[in-house]
């Protein structure tokens, strides 16, 4: 199976995004998705198992209930932990598996049609919105953090930024010139965007649990 054979196939697809990033860059991008998907999957899997133990044994203390702030127990026992009537980690198991598999496909050099990228964009967008709802709940309603959830937040934000930057780059040629320039900056500065984004959340966490961090410092 050669990449060029597949290239020919995808060129037949409707709007094969002639300005799409070269296959080489999508391969690296795919490798990134594999790493992100695997990390997220691991976290979701641990959360699902912990949730199962918590449900079968009311006295169970999750492995990540370390102190009053870092406490999976209070987060996992909250109503927000079953946002859609079933435990959230189930969504993570499916979602991160998808990210991992898509990443592996891209890393293998497969070119995907634009409708596929649109679907991926829709998925990661829903994911990032949901994660921010969970962040709000964790900080301001539950008042505790769960370490595995933090991993999920970081992965979802990173994957969302990467997918969005990639897709915007692919359609940039259709956008007005200033937007094209902005997209270029975003694509080039992805890691800075993710760092800044995570720092905003870190700042919110620092402020929210300020008194607690102070007691740790003594």
């Amino acid at each position, binding site marked *: 199976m050669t990449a060029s054979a597949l290239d020919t196939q995808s060129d037949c697809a409707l709007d094969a995004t002639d300005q799409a990033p070269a296959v080489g860059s999508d391969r690296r991008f795919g490798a990134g998705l594999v790493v992100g998907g695997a990390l997220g999957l691991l976290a979701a899997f641990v959360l699902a198992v912990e949730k199962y133990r918590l449900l079968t044994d009311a006295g169970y203390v999750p492995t990540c209930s370390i102190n009053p702030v870092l406490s999976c127990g209070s987060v996992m026992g909250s109503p927000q932990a079953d946002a859609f009537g079933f435990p959230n980690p189930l969504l993570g198991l499916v979602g991160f598996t998808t990210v991992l598999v898509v990443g592996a496909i891209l890393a293998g050099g497969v070119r995907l049609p634009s409708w596929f990228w649109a679907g991926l964009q829709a998925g990661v967008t829903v994911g990032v919105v949901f994660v921010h709802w969970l962040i709000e709940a964790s900080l301001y309603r539950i008042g505790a953090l769960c370490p595995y959830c933090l991993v999920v937040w970081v992965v979802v934000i990173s994957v969302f930024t990467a997918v969005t930057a990639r897709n915007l780059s692919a359609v940039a040629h259709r956008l007005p010139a200033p937007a094209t320039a902005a997209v270029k900056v975003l694509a080039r500065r992805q890691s800075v965007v993710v760092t800044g984004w995570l*720092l905003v959340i870190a700042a919110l966490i620092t402020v929210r649990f300020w008194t607690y961090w102070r007691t740790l410092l003594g």
Partner: protein
Amino acid sequence: MRSNFAVSAALVAAFALVVGGVVWLTSDRGGTAAAGADAVVRADSHRLGPAGNGEVTLVEFLDFECESCLAAYPVVEQLREDYAGRVTFVARYFPLDGHTNARNAAVAVEAAAQQGQFEAMYQQMYATQIQWGEQQTSRADLFREFAVQLGLDMAAYDAAVADPATLDRVLADRDDGLELGVQGTPTFFLNGEQLTVGSAEELIAAVDAAVRE
């Protein structure tokens, strides 16, 4: 891209600097150790019932929404009965951030205290904790009902609850606790020394030993 790493690292460094700076500016440099003894009981700290003979003082840092404090409550009430006149009991606010209504409850108790009803409101909070604890919405309305039941001057109560000074008074207690190294509730200090007791029996034994000394 190397410059991306540099920019990201600079952002992280700036963040760390700001946090470090705020910690440094807000920390009580040098004064902590000296302030220790006074911080356990202040002149305006709330006494539960009449003061004892001054020889033994038991201070509790508490959170009205904390289940362990609720568990300790009957033990403290029993101690108050058994050692009346020999031990001074002091209650100090230590509302935890994880409890939605901890501050509301403490503010309500402080508002009642301004009308001389600290103890009645304190007892009411524990008597009803199961009703209002562990919830994620404000129960200030319920606490106001308690004030009505106690026959408080409601105009004064409402004004006190709304006055930021009332919350400041609550947080002044908590800040003393933080300075003393209180990490959770309930935390007891017997004659100025922090107790590490794991059970009601150990608490009773510690108080009893102090009284016999």
